[in-house]
C-alpha cells in the first residue's frame, strides 16, 4: 500500500473506494451549467476549469451550483463513460448526492482541512468513503 502523504477528513460520504488524479477547483460545479455532457469537458465560458476533462478524475469543488439535473446527468455521463471517479464537495446539495448514489459514483461532502492547502491538481489521491478520508498518495510530477 502506498505511503499516505496527507489526509483530508470528510463529513459524509457514499460509494466505493477509488483512486485517481485530482482536479482542485476554486469554483463550484453543476453538470447542467458547466459541463458539456457529450465530451466531459467543462464548457461554460469563464469557468475556472474551462476546457478541462472530468473523465476518471477525482473532482474537488467547494460548492454545488443549481440544479435538479445532476440526478439524471451523473447517470448519463457514467453511461457515456465520461464520468469522474469521485466528486468531493465542500458544501453540496441533495441532488448531487441523489445523483452520485443513483449512478454509483463516489461522492463526499464537508472537508477538514480545506483540500486547497493540501492537494493540488494533478496529485494522485484515494477516496475512502467508509473511513471518510481522502489520502494524498503521490504528488504531481
Amino acid at each position, binding site marked *: 500500500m502506498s505511503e499516505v502523504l496527507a489526509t483530508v477528513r470528510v463529513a459524509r460520504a457514499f460509494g466505493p473506494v477509488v483512486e485517481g488524479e485530482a482536479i482542485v477547483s476554486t469554483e463550484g460545479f453543476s453538470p447542467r451549467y458547466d459541463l458539456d455532457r457529450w465530451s466531459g469537458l467543462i464548457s*461554460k465560458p469563464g469557468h475556472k476549469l474551462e476546457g478541462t476533462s472530468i473523465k476518471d478524475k477525482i473532482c474537488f469543488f467547494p460548492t454545488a451550483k443549481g440544479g*435538479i439535473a445532476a440526478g439524471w446527468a451523473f447517470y448519463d455521463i457514467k*453511461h457515456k463513460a465520461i464520468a469522474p471517479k469521485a466528486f468531493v464537495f465542500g458544501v453540496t*446539495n*441533495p441532488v448531487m448526492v441523489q445523483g452520485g448514489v443513483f449512478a454509483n459514483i463516489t461522492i463526499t461532502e464537508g472537508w477538514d482541512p480545506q483540500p486547497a492547502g493540501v492537494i493540488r491538481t494533478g496529485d494522485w489521491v484515494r477516496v475512502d468513503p467508509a473511513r471518510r478520508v481522502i489520502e494524498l498518495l503521490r504528488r504531481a510530477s
Partner: protein
Amino acid sequence: MLRGDRGEAVRDALAYQIRVGEFFGAERFVPITNAHMMGDIEVMGDGGFEYLRATCAKRARCSVPITTNARCVDFEFAGRLGQDAAEVEKERRLIAALREMNVLTTDTCINYQTLYQPHLGEHVAWGDTGTVIYANSVFGARTNFESGPAALAAALTGRTPEYGFHLDRHRKGTLVVRLEARLDDLADWGAVGKIVGEKHQSYYAVPVFTGVKRAPLADELKHLGAALASYGSMAMFHMVGVTPEAPSREAALGGNTPVDEIVIDDAAIERVYAGYNLKDRRCDLIVFSGPQLSLFEMKSLAERFAGRKVASGTQVFVTTSNGVKSAARELGYLGALESAGVTVLEGVCFYILQNLSQMRTRNGWTNMISNSAKIVNIIGAHKFNTILRRTGDCVEVACTGRLA
C-alpha cells in the same frame, strides 16, 4: 416494501432512498402527498431512458400523484427548430413509459402556479429548483431539491427521507437582506436573487428579506426564487410580512444570528444590468423562459408586443405550459404575440431544448437576451453570451434590433 411485497420497483426505489437518507443521517421517512419530477431525453440520455424502461417493465406504478417538469421537445415545433428526429421519437416513447407508470406528464415548471399548491407544513418531493424554493418559501410546504430519479422513487414508495428542509432546524433564516430598491420589473427581482445567491452560494443559506414596500406578486416571487436557487443553489427564503414562516424578522431567523446583512438599493440593481458584456451587440435571440410564463406574464407581454413586429434577423421565444398557452389562445394573447412574430413554445423550457448547442451554431446566435436572471445563468454550458434586461427593454431590443 424491502421484502418486495409491493413489487421489485418499489423495493429498489426504497433501497435507493435509504442510501440517500443514510448519507444525510436521516432518522426516518416522512409520507408525501405530491411529487414533481424532471424527466426528458435531454437530461437523462440513453442511460436514463434504459433505466426508466426497465423500471416500467417491473410494473412500477406511482402511488402518490406525480407531475412532470418542463421537457426538451415541443412536438409541434421540433421540425422547425431542427431537433433530432431520433431523439424526438425517444421523447415520445419516454412520455409513454412515464404515463404507464401513472405519472401525469404535465410538462411544466410552474406547477406551483398552475397545478398544485401544498399547504403549510405539507411534505412533498419536488424538482426543479424553482418549484422547491417556491414550495418551501411561499407555501411553507416542505421539500428538498429532488432529482428526477429521487422524485420518482418518492412517488413509488409514497415517502421521502427526512433531512434538509423537512426539518425545522434548516428552515430558519441565516442572513438578512434589506430591500431598498424599487423592484418594478420581474428582472429586478431576478437581479436580487443573483446578488444574494452569488454571495452566499449554499443549499443551507436561507435569506430573510425585509423592507418590502408592497405585496409582491406571485410572478415576482417566482423570479426571485428561481434566481436564488440558480445562483445560490438555495431552497428557501423568508420575506417578513409576506411568507408564512416570517411574521417577523425574529421569527424568520428563529434564534439564528445572521451571518451577513445586505442592503440592495437601486444602484445595486443597476450595477447588475451594467455588468454584462454586450459583445458584438447582436440582437439575434430574445428569450422569455425559465421559468415558464404564467397567464399574467403572457397578458403583459402580449400588450407590450401588440401592434409591433419583431425586427428582421431577430428571433423571440416564449415558453409556457400547455394550460397557459390554451388560455392565452382563448383570451387573444397568443394571437397578439404570434402576429408580432414571437414563437410561443409549450411544455418546454428554452435552456433544456434538445439540440440547443447545435441550434445556436446553426442560427449563428451569439447573444441571448432575457428578463430571466435564472436562464441568463443556467444556459452557460451551451456557450451563449447572456444579457439580463428588464421586460420592456427586452421587447424594445426585439422590435428595434438595437441593444443598448
